[in-house]
């Protein structure tokens, strides 16, 4: 099973990387861009795991390891079930 986890800063946390990209885009004339938030993508290959099990396992991994809950939030999705 292929799973994608997206980790990004909570809305309340300043994201200087995202802000820098926003500014760069404005300098280049992309005025339609109002705001950019930068995050991280993790693609996991899981084996021997049912969908149900994944629904418990993936958030656990994201919460415990991949994201720091003090500053980050995460979303996840299943990309491919075998």
């Amino acid at each position: 099973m292929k799973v994608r986890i997206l980790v990004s800063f909570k809305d309340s946390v300043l994201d200087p990387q995202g802000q820098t990209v926003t500014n760069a885009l404005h300098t280049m004339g992309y005025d339609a861009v109002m705001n950019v938030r930068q995050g991280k993508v993790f693609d996991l290959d899981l084996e021997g795991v049912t969908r149900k099990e994944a629904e418990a396992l993936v958030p656990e991994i994201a919460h415990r390891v991949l994201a720091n809950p003090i500053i980050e939030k995460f979303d996840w999705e299943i990309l491919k079930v075998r």
Partner: protein
Amino acid sequence: MKFGVVQFPGSNCDFDAFHALRNVMKRPTVMLWHKDHDLQGVDCVVLPGGFAYGDYLRVGAIARFSPLMQEVRTFARGGGRVLGICNGFQVLLELGLLPGAMLRNKDLKFLCQHVHIRVEDAKTDFTRAARKGQVLRIPIAHFDGNYYAPARTLRDIERNGQVVFRYCEADGTVTAEANVNGSMGNIAGIRNTEGNVLGLMPHPERASEALLGSEDGRTIFESLILSLERRKPARRPAAGKAARHD
């Protein structure tokens, strides 16, 4: 008394801390390997600077799961003194021994320079050789030293007097300009509520010899030695493995 310096594979200030403690402060000091479960009977654990496990995911994120850190957690919860310097501070935050988190420096650049920090509390085990309000000149060297805590946590930290060091000007005034990495409340170092765990971003081991430009960092080591040597042997693990002195 004995110091132990934790060695993660990506630690790079481990030998510097070891040098400062053993050769400058002249105290018995051992290295503690991250894969071990044995704290070798040390009285104080020092988590040094560096990039513990490469820190590609997030600073200090993987280090907290290492076998040795489980021992350090128990040691700290039992009142053992733990000093986290730079990456060591980041690891303590990830481990939950100290509140808050680190973000990238506000200018998105690594910063290596001398800074001034003001001693906010001179009663801790880490600062008792200093005066309240004393200004120390100590270098920083980090990319992720922008201290962050959610509003409520920050309020608690301040209310409990857990802020031990703040970035300041040479004369001790706390200004936005002195806050080079953008930390909330100019925070450079905090302790836990019990006062036995301290994390700070500046590197005292780099400011322990006059030849290197500053001796202000010694204050922190001297404080630790004072508190440890007076209260020895407060909470040594009973009948632990024979301590290896070297």
